[in-house]
């Protein structure tokens, strides 16, 4: 039995300690916004936050997340109005969309660490998130836009 706090809600899950966190999030907690891509921390599709820091859920045993705050794409905002989500919609970043929840979670982590990221900061922070549609130019533009929106929101 593992006790997890996902998006502010604490719940017990009857799963083995070594089950990947991603399995629990998707198949047991039924939060399917977080995607499975490679299972090897190579693509970034499964990115969630653990105590506010980005994490590849596919290579993290669920036991390592017990007692910590997990945030998935569903937990960013109740209605899709997180600055990064708004920027993503405004610039129509998504093509197929499969990688985008991971991209967004990495972007949120970047803006939190660096509120005014440069192109180089964006490239460095999101280099672990692969987009097979090649939406990288829009992703980069949207991160800049999100940073602006985040500043306006906190003002």
């Amino acid at each position, binding site marked *: 039995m593992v006790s997890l706090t996902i998006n502010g809600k604490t719940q017990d899950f009857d799963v083995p300690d*070594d089950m990947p966190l991603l399995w629990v999030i998707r198949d047991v907690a039924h939060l399917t916004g977080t995607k499975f891509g490679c299972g090897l921390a190579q693509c970034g599709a499964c990115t969630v936050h653990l105590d506010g*820091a980005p*994490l590849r859920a596919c290579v993290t045993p669920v036991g*390592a997340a017990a007692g910590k705050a997990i945030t998935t794409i569903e937990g960013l905002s109740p209605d899709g109005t997180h600055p990064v989500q708004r920027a993503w919609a405004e610039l129509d970043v998504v093509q197929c969309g499969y990688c985008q929840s991971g991209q967004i979670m990495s972007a949120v982590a970047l*803006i939190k660490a660096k509120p005014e*990221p440069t192109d180089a900061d964006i490239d460095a922070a999101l280099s672990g998130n692969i987009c097979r549609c090649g939406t990288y130019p829009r992703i980069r533009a949207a991160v800049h836009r999100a940073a602006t929106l985040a500043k306006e929101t906190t003002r």
Partner: protein
Amino acid sequence: MRHELRGLAMLAPLALAACGPAGPSAEQRAAAVDAFATVKEVFQHPRCQNCHIPGDAPLQFDAGVAHAQAVVRGPDGHGAPGLPCGTCHGESNPPASYGPHAPPGAPHWALPPPSMRMVTQGLSAPALCAMIKDTKENNGRDFAALIKHVSEDKLVLWGWNPGGERKPVPVPHAQFVEKFKVWADAGAVSVGVTDARRSGEMTNFPSERPATAEDRAVPGHRKGDPIPGLAGSAVGWNARRENRETLRVFEPRAGTTRKASLVPA
């Protein structure tokens, strides 16, 4: 033990400076130089050396190739803001059921910070010896702290239990610590060029270049024939082999300060 070591650390520089009877005996010195060969083997094993590098891109695998995903050292050694090392490298190696290719893990997975790089890659025995005991280069560690680091640090110990199909450090950990102590107890004798020559390395001194040469931060570390231009000006190029990134070095007039600029490949 700790008190003894502290004492040693304070006495060692004096002993070395005096070069007199207080220094290690010839026998002790030979044993220390011999022990340092083991220390060097461990420090420069891929498990340790892949992150003790002069540049900003960590290495991976036994071959020490550039880390996938263009991962960088970052402002504090913990990766780029938004992509810390801990994103993929957990507190311990993943369970074996995750397969041999899942990223390994150990506490505080990181590179040394950019201000204190603790480079071991490519250093000759004399240069490595000097780096390890230079408190300005080793993050202020005295010998007690160095021995604690190599004996107990969980990220160091990971080198002997790297998981997956990674080669562990081949020297048993206890033997490595023992050799480190033999070297430290002999006042951490400076391994000289002669010692290194005797032990069969350094035939052409390829690693005598300063550590900063690898990241090309200082153009003056490179030698070559620039293309001469008007009024004594000159231009030269530095290409990084791994990624063909090109650095242009421009000399406005002979003898003036060189200026380097990065030119996209």
